């Protein structure tokens, strides 16, 4: 039954992803399409209200527009968090958020990370949940989708990489808002609350009093997943019965967060006029995903050997930190998906995962290209594809080309920067955290698992994931500042570098395909691509994984 339910979810995903991929390629086409008739009216109104000019942009104009719009958004978000105590729609009387935590929170939601060093029930007013959290949950994946469209136009197009504002607004009007409305209503039908009423008070049958926090939950949970955001309305995220009440809501949330990342490779195939190319990119990510999923499933289903020795039967699997309604299959699947799509929503506490089960989310975030977050994940895998072409080209002595465009020094330098930044901003701060009191004071679990806790926090920040080994006491100046900076570097360095690559590639004269061209749309390239990801992306992290999860596994197995 476990394998059947996992396989069914993945089949449904594939059935949805292909048409979605085609839809996205049309929705963001530079040429006029029939979709313009449907969405054009609302979009033109927004352009007019904001005074947006629709001209094509150079990569530099595009990058500057991304940065300026994002700086504006983060400033607004920060101000609201600081002022939430005196603003309306605050029925539970929540006070202002303190400055460093506000910085961390605003940055976290701006960068599509959604690392949460606060607890939603007690840290945010309903107004903040809506006009900070939900607002940024739309605009940041929209930014990611815009940038990936620009990048893919750079690899496949001739005219231009597009206009940032048009892409950003279309991502709202044509993708995120319509889908969110549908998913919100389906979630409410499953029992996710959507109310402005304050916390309810119940008197239990044994006479005790129980406070039950609620709020406008469903409208946040839908975009949390569709936008690969991941920040929960409640502290425990999608393990909370109000965020994820049934196996069906779990299914819906898995599909929502995987839909856009899984369909973008197909969009790329349509844009490159080579559907096979899309399938090869999708296939490479799919193979890596399945390997991670199986590792998580088998480790969790085998239970915790330490508890077995303590006398508690583990035939149900490792149930600490998990919910009965999901069981092992739906939990392992959710965990593999949330860190593949770098969403960061959780339906269990990742801290309680078995050692090698916990290696799965860590590993997926370290690679950061197993589907990845809305937009940026596809950029990362395409970056690895260009790197693979370059390495393979060097090995057989051919000029490296990707889709008829020569890959030269300038592109390789930019890609090298983007690839090297990721391990640097994970490993260096982890080392600092472990070596200093201000870092290691937050660690809650003793032994090797403590190393994993610090490592996980920075990996999650760098990959803009946002899940955590949440035992970590992370609301301190050290963790708020350090993870805030890592999140910023993790998002913007690669976005800017890749826009530069797009700008450089689109200006090149296409070279005709010859006998000597390395084919990138066949299974040989699929293997080369996976090998490149594993060798370049994974080996850097092997030593630190040996110190954390692998050492912990050896001690309790």
């Amino acid at each position, binding site marked *: 039954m476990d394998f059947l339910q996992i396989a069914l979810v993945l089949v449904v995903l594939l059935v949805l992803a292909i048409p979605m991929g085609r839809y996205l390629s049309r929705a963001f086409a530079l040429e006029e399409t029939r979709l313009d008739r449907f969405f054009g009216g609302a979009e033109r109104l927004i352009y007019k209200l*904001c005074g*947006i000019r629709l001209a094509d942009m150079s990569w530099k104009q595009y990058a500057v*527009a991304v940065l*300026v*719009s994002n700086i*504006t958004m983060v400033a607004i978000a920060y101000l609201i968090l600081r002022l939430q105590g005196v603003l309306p729609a605050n029925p539970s009387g929540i006070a202002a958020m303190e400055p460093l935590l506000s910085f961390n929170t605003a940055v976290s939601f701006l960068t599509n990370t959604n690392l949460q060093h606060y*607890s939603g029930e*007690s840290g945010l007013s309903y107004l903040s949940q*809506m006009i900070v959290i*939900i*607002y940024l949950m*739309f605009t940041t994946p929209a930014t990611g989708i815009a940038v990936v469209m620009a990048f893919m136009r750079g690899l496949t197009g001739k005219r231009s990489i597009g206009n940032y*504002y048009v892409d*950003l607004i279309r991502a709202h009007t044509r993708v995120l808002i319509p889908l969110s409305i549908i998913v919100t*209503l389906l979630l*409410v039908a499953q029992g996710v609350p*959507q*109310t*402005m009423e304050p916390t309810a008070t*119940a*008197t*239990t*049958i*044994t006479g*005790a009093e129980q406070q039950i926090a*609620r709020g406008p939950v*469903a*409208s946040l949970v839908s975009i949390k997943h569709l936008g690969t955001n991941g920040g929960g309305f*409640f*502290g*425990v995220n999608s*393990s*909370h*019965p*109000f965020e994820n009440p049934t*196996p*069906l809501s779990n*299914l819906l949330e898995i599909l929502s967060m995987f839909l856009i990342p899984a369909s973008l490779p197909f969009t790329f195939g349509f844009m490159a006029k080579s559907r096979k190319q899309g399938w090869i990119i999708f296939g490479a990510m799919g193979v890596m995903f399945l390997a991670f999923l199986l590792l998580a499933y088998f480790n969790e289903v085998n239970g915790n050997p*330490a*508890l077995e020795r303590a*006398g*508690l*039967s*583990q035939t*149900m699997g490792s*149930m*600490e*930190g998990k*919910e*009965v*309604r999901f*069981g092992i299959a739906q939990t392992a699947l959710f965990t593999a998906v949330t860190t593949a799509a770098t969403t960061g929503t959780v339906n269990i*506490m990742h*801290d*309680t995962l078995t050692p090698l089960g916990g290696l799965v989310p860590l590993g997926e975030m370290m690679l950061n290209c197993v589907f990845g977050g809305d937009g940026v994940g596809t950029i990362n895998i395409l970056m690895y594809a260009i790197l693979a072409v370059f390495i393979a080209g060097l090995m057989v002595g051919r000029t490296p080309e990707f889709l008829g465009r020569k890959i030269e020094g300038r592109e390789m330098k930019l890609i090298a920067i983007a690839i090297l930044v990721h391990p640097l901003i994970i490993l260096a701060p982890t080392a600092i955290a472990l070596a200093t009191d201000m870092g290691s004071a937050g660690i809650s*679990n*003793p032994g090797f698992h403590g190393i*994993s806790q610090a490592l996980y926090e920075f990996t999650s920040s760098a990959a803009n994931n946002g899940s955590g080994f949440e*035992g970590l006491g992370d609301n301190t100046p050290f963790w708020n500042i350090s993870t805030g900076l890592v999140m910023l570097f993790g998002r913007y360095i690669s976005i800017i570098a890749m826009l530069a690559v797009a700008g450089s590639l689109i200006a090149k004269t296409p070279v005709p395909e010859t006998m000597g061209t390395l084919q990138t749309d066949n299974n040989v390239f699929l293997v080369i691509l996976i090998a490149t990801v594993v060798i370049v992306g994974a080996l850097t992290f092997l030593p630190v994984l040996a110190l954390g999860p692998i050492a912990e596994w050896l001690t*309790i197995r």
Partner: protein
Amino acid sequence: MWLTNLRLSFVLLLICGLAYPLAMTGISQVVMPAQASGSLIVDENGKVLGSELIGQNFTDPKYFSGRVSSIENNAAGSGSNNYAPSNPALIERTQKDLAAFLEANPGVKQEDIPADLLTNSGSGLDPHISPQAALVQVDRIAKARILDPAKLRALIDEQTEGRSLGVFGEPRVDVLKLNLALDQLK
């Protein structure tokens, strides 16, 4: 440029941050008021007894008890201890709970206790237990209430929710609903 972005930010904030959640609240409250307000269970006098989605603390031996909750099912918040599988505190808690359970339920064999009953759920608010976790408590409750154990087993069977669409998730029993039904049992 900055002015354009400021205007854009405000327009998107109004659409995504206000219009969208408020419209969703309005529609949900009209179409599905019970679910949208938190699936509250209300008795005949209008008193709120709890939510069918949120677990409650049951320590009285006359009632079925739910999963371990380090926050004692206080749904004003949520959370757990986040014990790593290698954490000695996890072993200690489990051994203590095991001993207490065996004492409260004489006759139950240690290997028959399912893992969900003595582990902390992720949310600390899990409303469910597995059917096995309910069955293992039957003898204690039958004795405390002077009831036929077969009647209790039938009740658990009746209260067991199957997998969604026959495939997804796990079979489970909502502890609050089970205990409410238990009080109705003659």
